[in-house]
């Protein structure tokens, strides 16, 4: 079981690194936004799996908070994009 968790966490980290790389290089702002969003959902998974792996699943509140924060920031972002229709170049 430990090995499974280890593999899962490692792969999630690699996937997170790929998202961050995409957020860093762009090239358009929408790529960055997309990368941030996928990174957030990956960290939700990471933290949930980590809490299961270390035997503290009662702290899942944090992952829940991430998901809600993800919602609130996505909404702020969508609102921003709607208020300011911007060109894609960054």
């Amino acid at each position, binding site marked *: *079981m430990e090995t*499974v*968790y280890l*593999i*899962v966490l490692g*792969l*999630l980290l*690699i*996937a*997170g690194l*790929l*998202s961050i*790389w*995409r957020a860093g290089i762009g090239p*358009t702002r*929408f*790529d960055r*936004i*997309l*990368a941030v*969003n*996928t990174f957030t*959902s*990956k960290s*939700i*998974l990471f933290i*949930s*799996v980590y809490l*299961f792996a270390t035997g503290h*699943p*009662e702290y*899942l*509140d944090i*992952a*829940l908070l991430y*998901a*809600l924060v*993800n*919602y609130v920031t*996505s909404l702020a*972002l*969508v609102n921003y*994009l*709607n208020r300011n*229709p*911007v*060109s*894609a170049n960054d």
Partner: protein
Amino acid sequence: MTEILGSLLLLLGVLTVLVGGVGLFRFPDFFCRLHSASIVDTLGAGLVLLGMLVLSGSVVIAFKVAMIGALIFFLSPMTAHALARAALRSGMHRDKPGSGPSTGGMK
């Protein structure tokens, strides 16, 4: 039995997430990347959370996992939808040589 099932779901899900991540990293233009990052990622997250649902021993924890799953399931496609619209309105098209600008199935 539940451990094996849960592990399988976890591994399958994380592999899907990784494939989505590679797609996000490697695909040539924004709409391709959106496709990979939103659809594949939602499936992968759902599988991982399903695995944890199987592994969770108590009702409270299962409920929290299910809540997280529901949030991701609704929010991730919604954000992708809003992003695609915003990108389309900003004048970004998926230009294919010879076929003109395609709107990728958006109305």
